[in-house]
């Protein structure tokens, strides 16, 4: 028992590691601030592309979404960071993460938005078009506001996943929270910094998970 606490809940080590871990946390938050809006916009683009009149555009969209939802995010990330240099394309860790996340998130958010748009009955589009609004205007002012409201829980759920996904950036040596905590671990031979990082994730995300639960309850009634 004592060794358990010493190895995992060692307050001295945690205190020692705090400065590094704190800096890692900041970078994690910055990464989220970059990656989540990018993913949302990408997802909107994908979902709108899926409503195109041209079959080729729709087909490309479906292939894009299926491909980037099937490939594990870590695989994509490693490919972008370690594989592309062989073809002459070199990215910094931050950019590599952004690129990989943009592709992955656009596919996931895109599916969510697509389901949302499809859930709005055709009558809405018809009414809007019958008053002279263009497809784009009808989408922007009538369909999308309703769709977004309907899929808000799914959007929130996916965003929670995205925040957790940022921990993968540690694999390509981006100095975010997990990377910093792991570095502290290797220096102190003690796993407590990682426990601290886990606690930080818990503190960040648990409230959101709870809010999501309440939102889902409210929307299903």
């Amino acid at each position, binding site marked *: 028992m004592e060794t358990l606490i010493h190895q995992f809940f060692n307050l001295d080590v945690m205190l020692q590691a705090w400065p590094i871990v704190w800096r890692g946390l900041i970078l994690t938050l910055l990464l989220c601030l970059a990656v989540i809006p990018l993913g949302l916009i990408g997802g909107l683009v994908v979902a709108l592309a899926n409503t195109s009149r041209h079959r080729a555009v729709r087909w490309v969209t479906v292939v894009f979404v299926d*491909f980037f939802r099937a*490939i594990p995010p*870590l695989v994509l990330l*490693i490919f972008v960071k370690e594989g592309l240099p062989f*073809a002459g394309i070199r990215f910094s860790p931050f950019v590599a993460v952004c690129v990989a996340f943009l592709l992955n998130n656009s596919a996931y958010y895109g599916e969510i938005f697509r389901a949302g748009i499809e859930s709005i009955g055709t009558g809405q589009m018809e009414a809007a078009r019958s008053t002279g609004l263009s497809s784009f205007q009808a989408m922007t002012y009538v369909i999308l506001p309703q769709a977004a409201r309907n899929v808000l829980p799914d959007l929130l759920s996916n965003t929670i996943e995205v925040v957790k*996904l940022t921990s993968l950036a540690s694999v390509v040596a981006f100095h975010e929270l*997990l990377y910093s905590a792991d570095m502290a671990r290797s220096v102190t031979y003690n796993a407590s910094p*990682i426990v601290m990082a886990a606690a930080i994730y*818990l503190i960040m995300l648990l409230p959101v998970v709870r809010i999501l639960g309440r939102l889902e309850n409210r929307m299903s009634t």
Partner: protein
Amino acid sequence: MSSWQRFAEAFLDWDVIVQYLPAIGSGLIVTVEIAALVVICGIVLGLVLVVLRSYRITVVNWLIIAFVDTLRSVPPLVLILLLYFGMPNIGINMGGFVVVWLVLTLVLAAFAEEIFWAGLLSVDKGQWQAARSTGLGYTQALIYVVMPQAVRMTIPPLTNRTIAITKNTALGTVIGVAEIMNEATTAVSFSGNASPLFVGALAYVMLFVPVVYLGRWIETRFAWRKN
């Protein structure tokens, strides 16, 4: 050199691919093994947890909720590193394969429990009353009447979540598990060519695209059940 040629040279070197295909093949088997074990154990554990939770014993409830909340909020990679590097220091040597399997099983169990619980709550109260009124005990009503209905409603979100979690088997590469990604990156180091990486990525796609389609098919089959 055109960009297509550069691409082909970097990613489609046939000799390198042939040389390392067996390695990636064995990695594929490991990936499938972990994934299959995670799916079975995770869902079973999730079912057990939800049945326990339905008895509404306060302490048990509290433990389950704490477990579920933690595993839904902490990234799997964090838990994997924690166990892999922390456990040996207190004398427990699990090895990479077991660590990945354990963490992903617990994560899936946590999500599955939540999904099953939501499904359980959405079954009409009348079903309980009808079952109990015919003399069925609590557990019998649960197992024979309520759970079957709850499970049907949970299939779509469950398949989605299961697919997402099994993709995390790739995390094994970080702690040296000999799955696809690990074999692929090792091969890249040895050969100085990125083709194994390309093939590895392709292996994942070939593995999961059918699974995603299967999931979508399952979803549409049960879609009419959703409100």
